């Protein structure tokens, strides 16, 4: 039986997908490039992402119809193969980032292979249950994380220094902001994968709105994190630390007995990240082995998730190689693949007959 999700759930899936992984290390490179003006970058990327989504959707519900069809053309297969490769790169990058963070912050003496295997087994368990379960977990956890992030500026009120975020305009400001936007764009463009899930959305009319609400929510939360971390730590610390947001939440000091809120916030963030990875794994399996999204055999998911876990370990010798890949290589690969996917989505939409 085919599984369905509502537009509200789709919105939160989109928000979670673009937000959960980008908060780990991305603010560092953005701040390195555009200094204390970095908090403006999400506002520059937002219109570009929304316009691309609108171009992808087009008028009416043709985009949804093109993915609802049971008979898949060769163009559909090309789209799903490209999407599968795109998601494999995202999965490996995010899993390694998650494992490295866990190893550094929570389990410093545990080998990263063991963390990767344990995380993969958890992801396998969630993904095998299907899109509905992944979505329900995401919705519950993302709302909790969203509320926590919204309350961060209040929790850090005594540490915020407004002079850290005062915009400074110079000769290179526009250039630096453009470079930062170039770095941020492929991370936000990941929301294109939701075109492949359109066949699972119950409503036909509110899908476009839901996707844009999701992008807006994700980018707003990222903006809030960037501006809070720069306001609290200053651009120097943010641009030099690998996990600036983690250092920022360590500054929360409401009372003497609540000075380790950082661990609680990390524990709130972890399921959100796991649900992003689970959704990615589900979509990879679907892109290669189950195009119509029916509840079929998930036997291939076990070796697939373990294979990707091994690749996440052996492809990066250390954290530095992984960071270089995320900040430099992924930017080009991400932009190229996202453009190609968008072109395929438009062609698929144009070729689909209007089913009014």
């Amino acid at each position: 039986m085919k599984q369905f999700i509502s537009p509200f759930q789709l919105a939160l899936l989109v928000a979670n997908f673009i937000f959960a992984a980008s908060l780990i290390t991305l603010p560092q490179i953005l701040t390195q490039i555009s200094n204390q003006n970095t908090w403006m970058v999400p506002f520059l990327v937002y219109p570009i992402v929304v316009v691309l989504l609108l171009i992808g959707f087009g008028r009416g519900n043709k985009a949804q119809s093109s993915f609802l069809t049971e008979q898949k053309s060769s163009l559909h297969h090309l789209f799903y193969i490209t999407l599968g490769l795109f998601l494999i790169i995202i999965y490996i990058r995010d899993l390694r980032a998650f494992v490295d963070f866990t190893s550094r912050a929570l389990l410093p003496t545990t080998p990263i292979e063991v963390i990767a295997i344990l995380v993969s087994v958890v992801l396998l368990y969630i993904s095998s249950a299907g899109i509905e379960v992944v979505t329900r977990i995401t919705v519950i956890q993302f709302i909790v994380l969203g509320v926590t992030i919204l309350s961060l500026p209040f929790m850090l009120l005594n540490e915020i220094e407004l002079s850290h975020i005062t915009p400074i305009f110079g000769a290179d400001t526009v250039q630096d902001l453009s470079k930062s936007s170039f770095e941020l764009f492929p991370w936000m463009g990941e929301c294109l994968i939701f075109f492949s899930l359109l066949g699972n959305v119950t409503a036909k009319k509110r899908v476009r709105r839901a996707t844009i609400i999701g992008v807006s929510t994700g980018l707003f939360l990222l903006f809030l994190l960037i501006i809070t971390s720069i306001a609290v730590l200053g651009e120097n610390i943010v641009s030099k630390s690998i996990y600036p947001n983690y250092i920022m939440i360590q500054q929360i000091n409401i009372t003497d007995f609540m000075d380790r809120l950082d661990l609680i916030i990390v524990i709130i963030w972890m399921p959100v990240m796991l649900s992003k990875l689970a959704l990615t794994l589900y979509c990879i399996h679907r892109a290669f082995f189950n195009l119509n999204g029916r509840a079929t055999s998930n036997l291939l998911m076990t070796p697939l998730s373990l294979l990707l876990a091994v690749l996440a370990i052996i492809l990066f010798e250390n954290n530095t190689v992984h960071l270089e890949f995320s900040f430099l290589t992924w930017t080009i690969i991400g932009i190229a693949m996202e453009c190609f996917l968008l072109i395929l989505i438009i062609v698929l939409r144009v070729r689909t007959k209007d089913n009014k």
Partner: protein
Amino acid sequence: MVGTIGILSILLIFLITQYKHIKQLKERKWVYLFVLVTAGISLFLSLPFSFNGLTEYLNMTVGYLTKMVVS
């Protein structure tokens, strides 16, 4: 070594418990192939060889384009 043993153990348990289901599956060849590839690649976790060269090559070539834009 711990990673390789862990992966091989999980794959072995998977094959033993799911053998009946795999046997009935049309794509059973794919399942066995994936299991074999995963088991083979997991050996790299304990061997002194690495796929890191591929990533470093990509960082030097593709990543260089981003460096040119950003710096």
